[in-house]
């Protein structure tokens, strides 16, 4: 792409900022979960709505999970009118729903539905497609915008209904009518407890500034980190508290149901950080923490394992 503005002119504009400049307040629906672009949607906001696969073993397995720290069920967004109800409920009052798909090739599957509902669509793309306008995805009544990461990172196509575009502010920093630049987020990505996708029995607690969740009552706690195929990453789970030090001494970790090595960076007897390296080739990873000692909470009677307040992802 052509030259970016000089550093002196630059203020940080992340992908979500740019999209909100174009569309106004947005709500995200990650159609591709858990396969491909949850990494990108987690960068866009802590709590994207997530879609279940259509059917099969994986769908059955994922039905046990809830997103947004355990507060929201995963949706089964088929395109039938019944399933569409779930999709329509994702966006709140005044929000524009943005459906995230895994690639431009997935457009045809959802195009007619989106056209009827006038939802926006976001798809990652290859550099070569950005250059040739004939390769750009198009929908009738939609305008296609290239969203290009300033330092050469992953880029996107955004398709927004025509009527949305004129409402954009006049002070936009637009490179061209069809192109916007955005700043990639820095490593590491931090997912607060309120943004975790897990199958534990307890939802996150706290508020929008600080949240935590306890594992339990089952000794098995499974969570799905945002982790695209083809990239290795390190995951650090922060445990500010557990009632029994054995839970850090003897905790077991599984990746996709098989034992995986981990390390514990201990802060105290009952707190620390669990560190797991995810290999490059892992698809659809599910991490399991197996907590050896569940403790009954004197006040609530809940069986508690370890408290997690954030997940840090480094690449």
């Amino acid at each position, binding site marked *: 792409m052509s030259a970016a503005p000089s550093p002196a002119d630059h203020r940080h504009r992340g992908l979500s900022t740019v999209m909100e400049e174009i569309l106004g307040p947005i709500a995200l629906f990650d159609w591709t979960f858990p396969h491909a672009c949850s990494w990108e949607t987690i960068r866009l906001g802590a709590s994207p709505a997530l879609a279940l696969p259509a059917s099969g073993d994986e769908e059955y397995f994922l039905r*046990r999970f809830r997103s947004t720290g355990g507060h929201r069920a995963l949706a089964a967004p088929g395109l039938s009118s019944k399933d569409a109800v779930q999709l329509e409920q994702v966006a709140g009052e005044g929000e524009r729903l943005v459906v995230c798909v895994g690639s431009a090739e997935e457009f045809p599957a959802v195009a007619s539905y989106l056209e009827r509902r006038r939802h926006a669509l976001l798809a990652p793309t290859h550099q070569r497609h950005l250059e040739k306008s004939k390769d750009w995805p198009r929908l009738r009544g939609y305008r296609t915008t290239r969203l290009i990461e300033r330092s050469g990172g992953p880029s996107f196509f955004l398709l927004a209904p025509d009527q949305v575009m004129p409402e954009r502010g006049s002070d936009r920093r637009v490179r061209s009518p069809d192109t916007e630049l955005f700043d990639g987020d820095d490593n590491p990505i931090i997912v607060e407890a309120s943004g975790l996708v897990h199958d534990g029995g307890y939802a996150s607690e706290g508020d929008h500034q600080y949240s935590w969740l306890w594992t339990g009552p089952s000794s098995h706690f499974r969570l799905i980190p945002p982790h695209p195929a083809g990239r290795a990453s390190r995951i650090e789970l922060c445990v500010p508290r557990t009632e029994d030090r054995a839970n850090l001494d003897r905790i077991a970790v599984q*990746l996709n149901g*098989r034992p995986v090595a981990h*390390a514990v960076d201990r802060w105290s007897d009952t707190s620390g950080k669990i*560190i797991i390296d995810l290999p490059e*080739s892992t*698809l659809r990873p599910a991490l*399991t923490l197996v907590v050896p000692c569940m403790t009954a909470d004197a006040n609530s009677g809940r069986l508690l394992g370890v408290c997690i307040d954030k997940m840090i992802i480094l690449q």
Partner: protein
Amino acid sequence: MGLAHSHGDDRSSSDLERDVLNWFTPLPPARNGIADYASMLLREIARHTPCACYCEDALAEAPPDVEVRDPVQAFRHLGPHSRILHHVGNNRGHVFVLNALRRFGGVTSLHDLSLLYVNELDAAKPDALFGRMKTSSPALGDVYARHWRDNNFKTSANYVLFDMVDEILDTSDHVIVHSDFARKKLIATYGAGAGEKLTVIPHFAKPIPAASSRQARLELGLDPATPLILTSGFATNAKRFDWLIAAVADLRREGRAFRWIHAGEERPAEYPLSKEIQAHSDLSEVCTVTGYLSEDKLDRYIAAADIVVNLRFPSVGESSGTLARAFSAGRCCVVSDTAAYSEIPRDTVVHIPLFDSSPALRIALDALLSDRALRETFGRRARQYARTTLSIESIAQRYLAVVEHAQRSSRSKRQPIGAVNALSERGENAAPTVVEWTVDDHIPALSSLIKPPAADFQGVFWFTSADHFAKVMGDSPATVTRLSSPEVEIKAIGFSGSMDASRIGLRIAGYIHR
């Protein structure tokens, strides 16, 4: 920090995965006899082939080099060519095994011949349970399932009438049972087709550390000279302590010196062992009930024993861990001549008949107590049996052979067996003799109902209710004698309902020799 990955991806290592024998079973520390059994067997088989174990408890005690995996995510690692071995029992710890069998198929080691309870525990799918009751027994399932579903009404008869094993036979590539009794029972219930899937592999005898009787008695504070009779485990009705008490009370009255120790817990609600012993004043001074013992302590009592008594009636085909240990320890054992116990070689243990059992037991114990050489002869043969036929090495090889055989067989050829009406499958040419009898308090002898000459027969014994059936069958060992006297060869057995569903019919087909 560098973290070494033991594993991570699934699909990329599919070639390696294909060689893995995938177990679905509970493992210790689960308090479950099958978990202990599977753990020991897994340790041995893992010496010969790579194994992984899908177990609900990820912290379970697996042998070295055996991965414990999450059964919920087994779908990521298993394919149509995976080698799979399930250990299915009738308790809560096996619900996940049953579900894995339904999903993936494979070879099943069947540890219980009645699986209604484990199906019931799979409470997430009650409708499926009721549906399977109908499949398990088409004649009765509909009525009993309706009672259960609509009125929450069930009785212990349900656990007799609906064994639910048909599903195991349908979904498994092959089924391992642990006695010929079990094999015959399943063939009798489900027809000859079931037999093609069945292989008998007895339970192995766990090697126990060699300990001399003298040393064990010293540690336990027992008199080294007095002969010791040992019983063990939960004191249940089926272990026939009533027969043993009558026999040893006679011996005591005759002045025979011995000590009897029951190494196990009482279940007074089921059988008040201590109370029954105390009712015989001359017995109470030579009898002791220890209460629950650790395995180590139990091994010491076995080593100290001269005679290990292990009776059963009625038997559902179970085997005894204590008995296997006693074989390993080279102890003289006395068992009932029934079910799986009948299959133990005659020169290895002393078999007590089911008829006039108590007098027979008295005679046997008298002979054994007075003849040390005789006891030692049986003990040597028992040890030899444990070290050969029942050795864990031998049993492991037999398991592997079954798994290999099942893998070679195409899964696509699997045919549902279902709850066939075994009676209708028989293809004898001559029309069988048909007998029908409404049962009052007892069942008449089959041989008295069928006139000579020798013939195939089909008999139906009608009971007024399931409770009536249970009472008649459970109250008297003579019932079994009447149905299975030596001239009667039973080929199939099953249940049916009367047209108005008011009666239960016990249907027996076979051949009577004259």
